[in-house]
């Protein structure tokens, strides 16, 4: 069966029915095949909004996930290389001959790219080769993200590459190296962190607060002080302890336009069984929509789909809302059980109220 003998439209239909991993493998077979894939899969590639280099595959149809080990996982990849020598094949990636194997199926899905085998010293050059190959494939309108952790040393500066960091600060002692790490990262997209009783402080200008998306589990709102200094779009915070006063201050600063200009969504969860009191709403001067009408539902596509696999933020259906003084934008506020949810609308108060007509 000679694929090239099929008419172009048939070749396209065949490729349309292939998984991304197989498409990549075919692209390595010849320049002509790569060209044909790029031409025929334009509409499919347009649906992809990010390429993630990481260790764990995850469920997000808009993402292409490339297996790439960081620090502690690298040993595992090297060990596998020794045990399964016969499974490897060579591919020429951006001019470099490298060894690969077909990836294992992860918990939710298969990786979209073969798994590279390399020594620690080659980590950066391997990532560079793969990154340039993919840049050529998908172009620079896609987000390229390196998913890593604080203990990883490799943060290469490559064009269009941003960093998503996950770390546990219970073992963090040296704040300077932590800040150095943050400032050395090219662009911080996402941060997931677990802070356990650390009484440290970060500079309000820390790059941590500039991440687009942050998810934390922390003892109190002071480290990191996301509730005060966050400059990104979406935050999911879980506190063991948080005073009402701190919640009130957050909403008031948003209302005044003094901070959180880019904020779209914030979820604050209390884990100490002391839910925020409804007095918070009065203290921040909430307004109420007509109680006889169903309030509009606020929900957004998440910047990142994490472990819960939910592509959208939890809906906020609340009669309570606040208005930002600087531009008259509205945010729905709700207190439900042990959570405070805050969702910003891209609407003025009049536009927002019309949603209920």
């Amino acid at each position, binding site marked *: 069966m000679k694929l090239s003998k099929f008419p172009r439209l048939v070749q396209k239909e*065949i490729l349309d029915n*292939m998984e991304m991993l197989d498409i990549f493998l075919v692209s390595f*077979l010849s320049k002509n095949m790569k060209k044909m894939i790029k031409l025929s899969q334009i509409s499919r590639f347009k649906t992809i909004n990010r390429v993630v280099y990481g260790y764990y595959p995850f469920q997000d149809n808009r993402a292409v996930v490339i297996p790439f080990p960081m620090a502690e996982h690298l040993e595992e990849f090297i060990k596998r290389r020794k045990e399964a020598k016969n499974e490897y094949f060579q591919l020429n990636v951006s001019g470099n001959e490298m060894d690969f194997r077909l990836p294992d199926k992860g918990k939710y899905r298969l990786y979209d790219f073969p798994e590279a085998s390399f020594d620690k010293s080659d980590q950066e050059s391997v990532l560079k080769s793969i990154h340039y190959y993919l840049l050529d494939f998908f172009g620079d309108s896609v987000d390229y993200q390196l998913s890593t952790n604080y203990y990883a040393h490799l943060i290469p500066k490559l064009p269009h590459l941003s960093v998503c960091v996950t770390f546990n600060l219970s073992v963090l002692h040296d704040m300077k190296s932590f800040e150095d790490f943050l400032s050395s990262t090219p662009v911080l997209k996402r941060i997931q962190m677990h802070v356990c009783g650390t009484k440290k402080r970060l500079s309000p200008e820390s790059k941590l607060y500039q991440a687009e998306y942050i998810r934390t589990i922390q003892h109190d709102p002071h480290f990191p002080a996301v509730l005060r200094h966050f400059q990104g779009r979406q935050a999911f915070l879980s506190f063991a302890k948080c005073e009402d006063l701190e919640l009130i201050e957050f909403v008031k600063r948003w209302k005044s336009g003094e901070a959180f200009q880019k904020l779209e969504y914030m979820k604050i969860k209390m884990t100490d069984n002391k839910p925020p009191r409804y007095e918070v709403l009065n203290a921040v001067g909430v307004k109420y929509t007509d109680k006889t009408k169903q309030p509009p539902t606020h929900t957004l596509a998440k910047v990142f789909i994490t472990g819960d696999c939910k592509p959208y933020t939890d809906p906020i259906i609340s009669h309570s809302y606040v208005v930002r003084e600087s531009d008259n934008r509205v945010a729905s506020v709700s207190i439900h059980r042990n959570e405070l949810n805050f969702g910003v609308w891209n609407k003025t108060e009049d536009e927002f109220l019309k949603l209920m007509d």
Partner: protein
Amino acid sequence: MSSTEQGTSSAAPAEPTTAPESAAAPEVPESFYYVHGKDKVVHKVSAGALQHSALIHGMISNLGYTEEQAKANPFPFENIDGDILQMVVDWCNQHKGKPTPPEDTNLPKQKEKLFDLVLAVNYLEIKELLTYCCKQVAMMVKGKSPEEIREIWMIPTDAEDEAAEKEAKKRAGKEAAGETAAAAGDAK
């Protein structure tokens, strides 16, 4: 499923047997048409079954043939092997008037048969069957290494592509030179 008789190479088509249709008799008598492939075996197929093929449907929609005229003028598909056309006719009969299922597991497993079926189905413009076939072709390389894929789909290397391109250019050059010489000869 349609049954067939071996056709002859004469102009008159062999007398085909009628394909058994669905159990319930249609209220309006259905019109039938006749098709044959490279082997000249004639298949009698209902207009309803042929609706799957955009090509044939377009050809017959304005003909208004009587049964006798249809029998006397079978559609020749000389580019399609008889056994492949038989598969196509069977599929059209099986799926006549029914919504097509998301998958079809009755497609040929042998590479070459599937290859010929894809070309025939593409030519006859049977969209759903083409989708099934393409899915099956795609499945052939699932979980395979690059070199295994190269072997299954006979994908040439860059060097082979370059050599073929050079050869094609050389041939085109020769042909052009031949035409020029012939034209010069004619002029004399």
